[in-house]
C-alpha cells in the first residue's frame, strides 16, 4: 500500500550563474545559454525557490507577502515555474519541503 503522493518540488539549479541588479536578478543557466532577468514577484519567487518547494508551497510563501486570493497566486506561479524549468534555471528536487 502506498501513501499519499509526494508533491513535486522545485529548487534553483546549481548550474546557474546570477547577479542581483538594481531591478532584480540576472540569471544565466549555464546549460541553456540565454540569460534573463527576474523582477518584482519573479525575484521573490526566485529567492523562495532557493529551498525545494512545491508550487503550492511557493505560492503560499508569496501569498504571505502579496495580496490576492491564493488560487490566483498559484495560477500565476505555475507557468513561471514551468518556464524556469524549461530554461534549466529550476530543477525538480527530491529534498524535503520547508
Amino acid at each position, binding site marked *: 500500500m502506498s501513501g499519499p503522493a509526494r508533491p513535486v518540488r522545485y529548487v534553483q*539549479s*546549481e*548550474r*546557474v*550563474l*546570477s*547577479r*542581483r*541588479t*538594481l*531591478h532584480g536578478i*540576472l540569471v*544565466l543557466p*549555464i546549460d541553456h545559454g540565454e*540569460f534573463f*532577468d527576474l523582477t518584482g514577484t519573479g525575484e521573490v519567487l526566485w529567492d523562495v525557490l532557493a529551498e525545494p518547494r512545491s508550487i503550492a508551497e511557493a505560492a503560499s510563501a508569496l501569498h504571505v507577502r502579496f495580496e490576492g486570493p491564493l488560487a490566483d497566486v498559484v495560477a500565476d506561479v505555475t507557468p513561471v515555474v514551468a518556464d524556469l524549468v524549461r530554461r534549466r534555471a529550476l530543477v525538480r528536487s527530491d529534498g524535503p519541503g520547508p
Partner: protein
Amino acid sequence: MNHPWPPLARAVAAHGLPGHGVPFPAGAPDGTAWAELVVSVKRQRLAGLLALAVADGAVEVDAARAEQVAALHRTAMVKAVVLERALLTTTDVLGHAGVDLRVLKGTAVAHLDYPDPAQRCFGDVDLLVRAEQFDAAIEALRAGGYERLFPEPRPGFQRRFGKGNCMVTPEHHEIDLHRTLAMGPFGLTIVLDDLWANGATFRLAGQDVPALAGEERFLHACFHASLGDPIPRLSVLRDVAQMLLTRPLDLDRVRRRSAAWRADAVIARAVALAGDAFALQATEPLLAWARAYEPDGRERQAMAVYTDPHQTYAAKSFAALRAIPGLPAKAAYLRALAFPDRSYLAGRHESRLHRWTRGLTQVVRPRIRP
C-alpha cells in the same frame, strides 16, 4: 592633495569602505560632473559600487539617472556572468588535462572579498597555473579550440621567464593564463611555491573554484595596483583597501611574503596609493608602514620601469635580466629575446635587425630623457 581621478568617482569607489574619508558632495551632481562620472565608472569598473551607492541613497539621482545606473550595472553584470561561464568551461578543460589552477583578480575577489559579487565588475578571466604545467595548460586549451594570442620568443620562454599568455576562447573571451603575478623584475622574484602553499575556494554554479589564499590575494592586488598601470584603476585600489580593512589578514605573513619576494616597495606603494585615494586613517599598521616606507636605489630603479608611462615592454624585459638568477639562465633569456623564432617576429617587426634597433632605442631612450 591632487588626485588623478574625478572627486565623484573617488567617492563611488570608496562607498561602503569602513573608515574612508571621501564623502559624496552634497546635492545632485550637475550635468558635467555626472557625465564625467559615467565615463569614469566605465573606465574604472565601478558600476557595481555606483549601483550600491544609488541603492543606499548616498548619491542623489533622479529617475532618469537611476535608470542609467541600472543599465550600466546590468551591462557589467551580463559581462561578469558570461565570463564566469567561460571560466567554468576553461577550468573543466584544464582539470581534465590534470593542470592545477588558481583563479586570480576580479572574479575571485568579487566572490571572496566583497559582501556581494555584484559590487565588483571585471573585464576578463585570469588564471594562475604552475610554471611546470604552463606548456601543458596552453596545449590543453589549444586542443579545446582556444587560440594563443601572442607567440613566445622561443619554446619554453614563458614557462621560465614570462608572466603568462592570453588565450582566446572559441566564443572570443579572453583568458589570461599566468605563471607569475607580474612581468618584468618583480614578477621574477616572486616565490611561486608561496602562491600554491595555501588556497581558498568560492562556489560558482555548484562547483568549488580554487583561488589564492587571502594574504596572497591581497599581495596580488597590491602588485596589480602598483605595477599594472602608471595610474591605477580605482577598482584595483578599492580591492587593496577592501581586503586590508574588511578581511582578517595575517599581516605577518603578508610582510614575510613581501620581503621574500623582494616586493616591499610594490606593496608599500599600493597600500599608500589606496590610503591616499580613499583618505584612510593611518591607524591601520600596514598603512602606517607603507606611508613611511623609503625604497632603496634598486627598488626605485625597478619600480621606474612600471610607473614611468613612457617605459616599454623592451625596457621591462631588460630590467628583468637583473632578477634572473644565474648566468646560464640570463644567457637563455637574452638569447630568446635577441634571436626569437620567426613566428614571434611575424607581424611585429620587419626583421631581427629592426627588432634590435627598436629594442635598444626603448631601453636607452628613458635614460637620456631629462
